[in-house]
C-alpha cells in the first residue's frame, strides 16, 4: 500500500512551493491566535532543564513537510534549551516499518506523528506509550478539541495520540466544466437528486462528469464515505467481523459502480486519472482529500471549488483521518526529554493555524473557530464536515485489513470484474479470518 501514499505525496510535492507562499502570508495573523489558544490548551507547559535534543519523526514528504519544518524552526528559535531535529520519510512503507524497528532497537524518536487509525496497532505492539499523563500535565481537555477527533485517539481506555488535525474527504468540482455542461458553477450538487441531474446534464454535453477511481486513493475513501452515508459500517461494534457486505455496503458500492455503468465515468480509471482529468477539464467532480487543495491550487488557470461531500445516502458522512502526536517507547526514558517533548507538542498544536494553512483542519477548537482559519479560502469547507466525519477503527491490524483486503472489493467492483455483493462477500470472508488471527495475536483487543 506504500506506493499509493507516495503517489499522492508525489502530486503534493509539486504544490509545495505554492503552499510555502501561503504560509508566509499567513504568519502574522496566527500569532494572536496562538497566544489565545495557548491559554485555552492549558499552556503552562514549560521546560527549564538542561539543553536537550529531540528527534521528531514524521511522514510529511509532500507540501506539508516544509510547513512543519518551518514550525519546528520557529519553535527552536523560541526555545533556547530545546533543539528539535525533524526526520521525514514516506509514511508507508518507510515510516510505519522503520519507527517500530527503531523503537525495538532502543533508537526510537522522542516524539512522532502517526495517523489515528494506526494508533491501536502501534500501542498493541508497544511502539508508543499512553499519554494520559501528558494530557493531564498539559491541561488538555476534550472540550478544547473537536470531539470526533479527540475520541478517536483512545485505544483500550488509554489515550495514545494527541490530535493535531484532521484531513477529510471533500467534493471538488471544475467550474469551467460545469459551465460547459450548462450547470451553475457556484452551486455544486449536494444531494443525490442534484448529483444525478447534474451528471445527466453533463452527459448530454458528452462529458463524463464523475470519474470513479478503482484505486485505494481515493476509490476506497469514496466507498467508505458512501457506506457510512447509507448507515453501514466497516466492522461490528467490537471489530470481530467485517460488515461491508451489509445492504448499506452493497447500496454504496452499487451507486459507485452505476456511475461507471451509466457512463458518468470511464471504465479503468488509472491511479490519479480522475484528478488529472479534472485538471484537464475532462472531469467535473472528484471526491478527494483536503490535501488536493494544494495540488489543484498549483494548476494555473484551473477554475475549481470544493464543498462538503454531497449526501447520497440517508445521512451525512465523510471519510477522514487525523495526524496525532505520539511518544515512542524508550528503553530508558530521559525525563528531561519527555518534558521537552510535551512543550513541543503543546506548542505545535497551539500554532496549528499555520499548519491549517498548508491544507489541514486543525483539531484545536480555538484555532479552528478563529477568524484567521475562517478567512482561509478552502479549509473551512472541510471543517463543516467535522460533526459527521468517520475514522477507521484503531483496532490493531485493521488498517492493513482495510487497505489490503476490503479495498480489493472496491477495485474488483469498480473495474466491473465482479458484482458489488459478490466482491464484498469475498472480501468480508477473507477479512474475518484475519480479524480472528489478529484477535489471537493481540489478545482480544
Amino acid at each position, binding site marked *: 500500500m506504500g506506493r499509493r501514499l507516495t503517489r499522492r505525496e508525489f502530486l503534493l510535492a509539486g504544490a509545495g512551493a505554492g503552499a510555502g507562499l501561503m504560509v508566509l502570508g499567513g504568519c502574522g495573523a496566527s500569532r494572536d491566535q496562538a497566544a489565545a489558544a495557548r491559554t485555552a490548551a492549558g499552556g503552562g507547559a514549560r521546560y527549564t532543564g538542561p539543553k536537550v535534543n529531540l528527534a521528531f519523526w514524521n511522514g510529511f514528504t509532500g507540501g506539508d513537510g516544509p510547513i512543519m519544518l518551518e514550525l519546528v524552526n520557529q519553535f527552536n528559535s523560541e526555545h533556547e534549551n530545546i533543539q528539535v531535529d525533524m526526520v521525514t520519510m514516506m509514511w508507508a512503507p518507510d515510516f510505519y*516499518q522503520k519507527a517500530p524497528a527503531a523503537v525495538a532497537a532502543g533508537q526510537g524518536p522522542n516524539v512522532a506523528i502517526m495517523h489515528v487509525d494506526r494508533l491501536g496497532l502501534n500501542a498493541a505492539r*508497544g511502539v508508543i506509550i499512553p499519554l494520559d499523563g501528558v494530557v493531564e500535565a498539559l491541561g488538555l481537555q476534550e472540550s478544547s478539541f473537536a470531539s470526533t477527533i479527540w475520541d478517536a485517539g483512545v485505544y483500550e481506555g488509554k489515550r495514545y495520540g494527541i490530535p493535531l488535525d484532521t484531513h477529510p474527504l471533500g467534493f471538488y468540482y471544475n467550474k469551467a466544466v460545469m459551465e460547459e455542461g450548462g450547470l451553475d458553477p457556484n452551486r455544486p450538487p449536494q444531494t443525490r437528486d442534484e448529483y444525478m441531474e447534474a451528471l445527466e446534464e453533463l452527459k448530454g454535453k458528452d462529458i463524463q462528469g464523475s470519474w470513479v477511481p478503482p484505486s485505494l486513493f481515493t476509490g476506497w475513501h469514496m466507498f467508505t464515505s458512501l457506506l457510512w452515508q447509507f448507515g453501514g459500517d466497516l466492522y461490528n461494534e467490537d471489530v470481530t467481523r467485517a460488515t461491508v457486505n451489509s445492504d448499506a455496503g452493497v447500496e454504496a458500492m452499487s451507486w459507485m459502480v452505476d456511475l461507471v455503468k451509466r457512463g458518468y465515468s470511464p471504465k*479503468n*480509471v488509472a491511479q490519479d486519472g480522475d484528478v*488529472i482529468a479534472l485538471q484537464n477539464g475532462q472531469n467535473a467532480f472528484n471526491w478527494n482529500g483536503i490535501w488536493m487543495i494544494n495540488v489543484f491550487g498549483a494548476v494555473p488557470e484551473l477554475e475549481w471549488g470544493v464543498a462538503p461531500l454531497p449526501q447520497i445516502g440517508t445521512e451525512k458522512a465523510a471519510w477522514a483521518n487525523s495526524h496525532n502526536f505520539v511518544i515512542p517507547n524508550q528503553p530508558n526514558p530521559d525525563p528531561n526529554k519527555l518534558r521537552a517533548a510535551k512543550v513541543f507538542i503543546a506548542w505545535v498544536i497551539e500554532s496549528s493555524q499555520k499548519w491549517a494553512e498548508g491544507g489541514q483542519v486543525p483539531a484545536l477548537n480555538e484555532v479552528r473557530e478563529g477568524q484567521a482559519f475562517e478567512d482561509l479560502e478552502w479549509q473551512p469547507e472541510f471543517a463543516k464536515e467535522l460533526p459527521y466525519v468517520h475514522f477507521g477503527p484503531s483496532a490493531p*491490524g485493521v488498517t492493513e485489513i482495510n487497505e489490503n483486503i476490503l479495498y*480489493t472489493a472496491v477495485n*474488483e467492483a469498480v473495474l466491473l470484474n465482479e458484482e458489488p455483493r459478490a466482491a464484498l462477500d469475498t472480501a468480508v470472508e477473507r477479512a474475518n479470518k484475519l480479524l480472528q488471527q489478529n484477535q489471537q495475536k493481540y489478545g482480544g483487543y
Partner: protein
Amino acid sequence: MAAQGIEQTGAQPTPPAAGYPSGGKAESTGSFSWTPYVFLAPYLLLFTVFIVVPAIFGLWISLHNWDYLLPEQPWVGLQNYVNLFTPGSPTAGFFWQSMEATGIFTLFSVPFLVIIPLLVALILNQSFRGRNFFRAMYFAPYVLGVAVVGVLWQYILNPGFGLINYYLGALGIGEGAVPWTTALPWAWISLVGMTVWWTLGFNAIIYLAGLQDINQELYEAAKVDGANRWQRFVNITIPGLRPVFLFVITVTILASANMFGQSYLVTDGAPANETRTAIMYIAEEGLENFRMGSAAAMSYILALFLALISILNFRFLNQKEED
C-alpha cells in the same frame, strides 16, 4: 570458451577439502595449506552472517507466529506451511495467486530476455561505424534504478494521459484508451515490456563477451567448407555459447522470479492483486501486516521452487553439453 576456461583453471589447485582425488595420500596431507581458506574467509564470513544465519533463523521464524515487537512468539509448528496448502485459509489464496503472477511474469519475460539480447549481441558484434555508441545505448537503461524506470514508465503507460495512449489515439487506434496498467493482459504486456527494455543490455553484454570468445578460425574453416551464415550460426555460435546460455537463463529466471519493483511501482498489483508478485506479497505479509512467521514460510516455499527450477535448468543444459 570463457566459462570452460575458468572451470579448468579453477580445478587445478585441487585443495584436499574440495574432495578432488589428488595424487598420493602422503603428498596431499603434506601440502595442506591455510592459504586458500584465508582468501575465502572474508566471503565466507559475509556469506555466513548474511545468508546462512538468516536462512536458518528464517526457518525458526516460520515455525512461530512471529512479530519481533510482541513479548511472545507463539510456537505454531508447521501451521504457517499448512495454511499455505489449505484452500480458504487467509493466506493460501493470495499466496498462490502471487506465485501464479510470478510464474506468468517469468514465463513471458525469460524467452524475450534470452532471445532479444542475443540478437542485439549478434548485431553489436559486427564491425560498423558507431558500434561503441550503440553498445552503450543498449546497455544504458540497465544502469537506472528500478524506481527511476518505474516512474518513467508510469508516465509512458498511464491509460489516461500516458504517451503511448496519446500517440495511439492520434493514430486512431483503440481510442487511445488501452488500460495499460489497470487490466489484463495489458498490465502483463507493460510489465514484461518495460523489464525487457530495462535489462536486455545486461544479457546482451554477457552474450557479446561469449561471442568474442568463440574462435574465429572455426568460422573461417566453416566458410571454406561452404557453410552458409545460418549453418555457421547453428553449428558454431549456438554450441559456442552453451555455457553462456546456462548462465543467462539461470540468472534471468531467478531475476524474473524475484520481480518486485516494476509491479510495486507501475501497477501496484492491480487489477485486484493480479500482478502482485510473490516477493511483493511476502513483503506485505511480513513488513506491513507484521505476520513474519507466515511470510517466512512463504519465502521457503518460493525458494524451494527456485531451487528446483535451477536444478532442472542445470541438468538440462549440462546434459546437452555432454552429448
